[in-house]
């Protein structure tokens, strides 16, 4: 499909090999994340192989690189779609069918909404669910729980990232419609519900482990700590809550010993 798109595309086009290199470099998008340009360096570095195909003249290529050093920020996975789309638009620019400003507008228009989509789906839903599934299965699977986490997460993450890049390249502005049809945001509430249930199972495991190790009083102490910590975490923060729990645990432990 990609080959067909390339063969029917404009005169100056990016080779499949260069597209693959752009994708691989997109995995380093945040290597030099900085507060002023955010992912700009990573973006410019990632798109460089495509620019090398499109602008044989080093001076014009340097100009194109300079354009991509403008501010850019997105979710690192969803940015693959914008990167693919930017490559397609750069082909149009190289063939005189579009202005460089269109590439810039495309990037700045899609960055924030795609960032919100990626944050909500990957960081706030998929990753917690995969980690909680691993934590919940640890007593049964032992070290196998590490594979549970990595497989659950990356079986979604890697294909989605590749699909976003390919779709971005093939459809440019049409990537918005394709991403909207992927229903990423509609899957998020279901994932979060799974995450909540798994978090409950993990909490229960803590209580049961304490009962097994030190008896019913200890189990009740752990259960009370979970509830109290949940209620006070927003004010205390995790670090302080852990130290308080450690202190209480030490005192109770010393008295019970």
């Amino acid at each position, binding site marked *: 499909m990609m080959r067909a798109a390339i063969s029917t595309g404009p005169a100056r086009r990016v080779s499949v090999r260069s597209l693959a290199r752009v994708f691989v470099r997109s995995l380093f998008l945040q290597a030099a994340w900085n507060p002023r340009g955010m992912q700009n360096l990573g973006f410019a*570095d990632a798109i460089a192989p495509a620019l090398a195909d499109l602008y044989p003249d080093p001076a014009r290529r340097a100009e194109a690189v300079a354009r991509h050093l403008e501010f850019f920020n997105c979710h690192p996975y969803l940015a693959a779609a914008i990167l693919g789309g930017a490559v397609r638009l750069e082909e149009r620019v190289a063939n005189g069918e579009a202005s460089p400003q269109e590439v810039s507008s495309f990037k700045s228009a899609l960055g924030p909404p795609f960032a919100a989509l990626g944050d909500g789906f990957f960081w706030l839903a998929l990753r917690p669910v995969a980690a909680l599934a691993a934590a919940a299965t640890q007593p049964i699977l032992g070290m196998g729980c*590490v594979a549970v986490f990595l497989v659950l997460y990356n079986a979604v993450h890697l294909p989605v990232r590749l699909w976003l890049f390919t779709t971005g390249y093939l459809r440019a502005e049409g990537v918005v419609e394709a991403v909207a049809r992927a229903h990423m945001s509609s899957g998020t509430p279901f994932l979060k519900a799974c995450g909540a249930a798994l978090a409950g199972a993990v909490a229960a495991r*803590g209580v049961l482990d304490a009962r097994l190790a030190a008896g019913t009083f200890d189990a009740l102490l*752990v259960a009370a700590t979970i509830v109290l910590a949940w209620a006070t975490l927003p004010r205390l923060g995790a670090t302080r809550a852990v130290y308080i729990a450690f202190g209480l645990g030490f005192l109770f432990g010393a008295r019970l010993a």
Partner: protein
Amino acid sequence: MLPLPPGGAAHLFFLAAVAALVGGLSAIERKGALQLMLSRPIVLAPILGWALGDARGGLVLGVPLELLFLGGVNLGGSLPDNESLLAGALTAMVVPAGIAAGTGVDAPLAALGLALLLPLALFGRRLERAAEELNSRLMDEAVRRASRGDPSAARVNLRGLLLPFGAAAGICALGVLVSPVLALARAKCRAIELFALAESWHLGWAVAAACAVRAIRDPRAPALAAVCALTVIVITLAFRGAG
């Protein structure tokens, strides 16, 4: 005399080099490269534990750390605590200490290690912020080179990985090198202190579980988690017997 792992001081330095390599790679994987989640505590701690001689011990540390930092998210310019640095340093210190003490990673040792190193997560966040500020210089350099007509100006991007790698590698190596002190502290503990430390670990685990519930940012999450927790407890007790 400080307790050392089998192989003595030479082996300890070898383990420090291993921890430096794994810890350094995890630091760049966390944000700068790939992001396959290999640097999450639940993955990093068992892998580093395996490299240091006790994968199971690494997992004992990795699971509660994962839960504790489950809600930390890097949104835009905001930075979460650096869970990977803590997981790397804690594993680097506790696993060799457990081997040297002959106890493995048990609850008292894990509690002692975490109590000592927990502020490292916050320190890691500050370190990351400093690295990002330095990356601004790389950006300036790239802009300068591009304006002079250098088409490979953006290649400086990868130099942004050096500082996170170096800092994490150094901290993890240091963790291994001070592990005999932790092993000695563990060996000197009396029975009452060991029991108290084990109790601390249980309650620390409880806070981690509470953090996991908080990490699910959904108004239904607390109720769903409570129902599920009660169901699991009731079913387990019914099968095992409540006595």
